[in-house]
């Protein structure tokens, strides 16, 4: 079977649509994840979607809905326990440890196929159902709308919190809203690449983009582009290589783009230095 034949298949089409949606929202939040130093929040909420999935299975036999509802609970818990920025990582650690314990306990109570919950640890991109695709579309739409509304105050509060506060931005509220968006995005991504590999779509593309530009809009655009190339490229490549899983390809492509950007970016920095001259004496 060639690539063209694969593209006729519904499960492949579903995978590509899901992979594209997830890449767009991950690439969109990525630059803010880096600026706000929220990589651990991405990792924590990703792993905790396992607990949400297990809870969903026990309560309603629906891992995906459970994971999304759980992600909101997790974001709210992190937000409440980390009133100060520097408490955030320890709050995430505390919730992560307890939450995974709860997840294991819940999974023990479930008597169906536990694959549905463990799938979310490693991704099950080629098993996306119609319903899941609609849910994903709704989540991606919500994330896009929220990020469009939040963009300016979030950028201000992330790069320059003191002045943002002085100008009237409610940093705490904006931060909590972003945490919700992040948690939803990460949970969506977990279904594609798995919780353990979410960082390859939510951080690596943005990190690569930052090496190449200092324009906020350009960095966001490049980040989305790199995430799309990694996600769709990885899915297509895995169709050609049955022995290598899609998540392996996705992480590999996104890492390769990062490596290339670092090499190219070193030259960009040198050029920028020349652009910024010493200040004229007053």
């Amino acid at each position: 079977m060639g690539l063209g034949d694969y593209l006729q298949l519904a499960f492949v089409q579903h995978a590509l649509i899901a992979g594209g949606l997830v890449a767009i929202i991950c690439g969109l939040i990525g630059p803010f994840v880096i600026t706000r130093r929220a990589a651990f929040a991405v990792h924590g909420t990703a792993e905790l979607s396992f607990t949400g999935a297990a809870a969903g299975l026990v309560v309603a036999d629906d891992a995906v809905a459970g994971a999304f509802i759980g992600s909101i609970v997790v974001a709210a818990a992190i937000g409440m326990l980390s009133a100060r920025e520097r408490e955030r990582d320890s709050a995430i650690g505390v919730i992560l440890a307890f939450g995974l314990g709860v997840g294991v306990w819940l999974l023990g109570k479930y008597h169906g196929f536990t694959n549905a919950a463990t799938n979310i640890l490693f991704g099950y991109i080629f098993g996306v159902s119609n319903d899941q695709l609609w849910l994903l579309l709704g989540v991606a739409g919500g994330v896009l709308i929220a990020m469009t509304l939040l963009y300016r105050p979030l950028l201000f509060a992330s790069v320059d919190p003191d002045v943002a506060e002085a100008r009237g931005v409610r940093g705490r509220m904006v931060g909590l809203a972003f945490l919700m968006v992040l948690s939803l995005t990460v949970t969506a991504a977990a279904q594609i690449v798995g919780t353990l590999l979410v960082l390859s779509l939510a951080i690596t593309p943005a990190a690569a983009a930052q090496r190449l530009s200092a324009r906020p809009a350009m960095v966001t655009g490049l980040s989305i582009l790199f995430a799309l190339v990694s996600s769709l490229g990885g899915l297509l490549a895995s169709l050609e290589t049955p022995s290598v899983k899609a998540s392996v390809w996705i992480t590999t492509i996104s890492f390769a783009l990062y490596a290339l950007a670092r090499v190219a970016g070193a030259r960009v920095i040198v050029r920028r230095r020349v652009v910024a001259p010493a200040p004229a004496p007053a």
Partner: protein
Amino acid sequence: MLSVTETPARPKQTATVALRGATLRFGARELWAGLDLDVAPGEFVAVLGPNGSGKTSLLKVLLGLQRLTAGSVSVCGRTPRRGSDLVGYVPQQKAFDRDLPLRGRDLVRLGLDGHRWGTALPSRRARARVDRAIESVGATAFADAPLGLLSGGEQQRLRIAQALLGDPRVLLCDEPLLSLDLAHQQATSALIDARRRDAGTSVLFVTHEINPVLPLVDRVLYLVGGRWAIGTPDEVMTSSRLSSLYGTDVDVLRVRGRIVVVGAPDAAHGDPGGSHHHHPVDDDHDDAGERAWA
């Protein structure tokens, strides 16, 4: 309670900042009380005092981020409100990450509409305004470079452009010269001075160190542990005045046009527990300033 007022009578409507009996308390801790202050257009007021004396909190009151415990405050005749264009704010220089995805121009632009919801659409008018502000502080040459690669002095020029974008009537500066070298201190204070002379913008300038701005200062507001004094530098910066403010012997010396204060305690409060009860934001800020000077 010692409140020494030297304020010349000014017509109330021309004052950009007016405080009447202004009092700020955090729990049992009183930062200042009964503060009366009128700031005239174009006036440069240096706000001095030890750590935790409520200098930054005074700015927060004027920014509408902190309510007074008692008394009244107005900026251009109105109650201060979050995000008002009447007030511009220049913070101390800080270290930005080298790879922060933000150019100098973007930082300035955030001062225009960064607090609004939504996404900024490309606008020729907004761009022209940002360009003018950048040009007015002589930052055009490096405005497109990444913020993280700029020197502290270059950053502070952009900070001033950012604060002036809204065309404020009052400029609040919180240690803007901290950690700058002498040449950049002079360049930065010259920009602030030019603005208040050209546009009649009042300046409240919080600082640990009066000397770099001494030639510009019209009046000094000196806060010490609930007590305060206001007047020209010659009136306030004297041994007898500061000794009575601090409640201990303080010597003020004038050496080669510089003012040297000897014997002033570092903290606003003599009581050992006092400094642990004050407002966390103010605490962080003043402590950070202290470390940078140490």
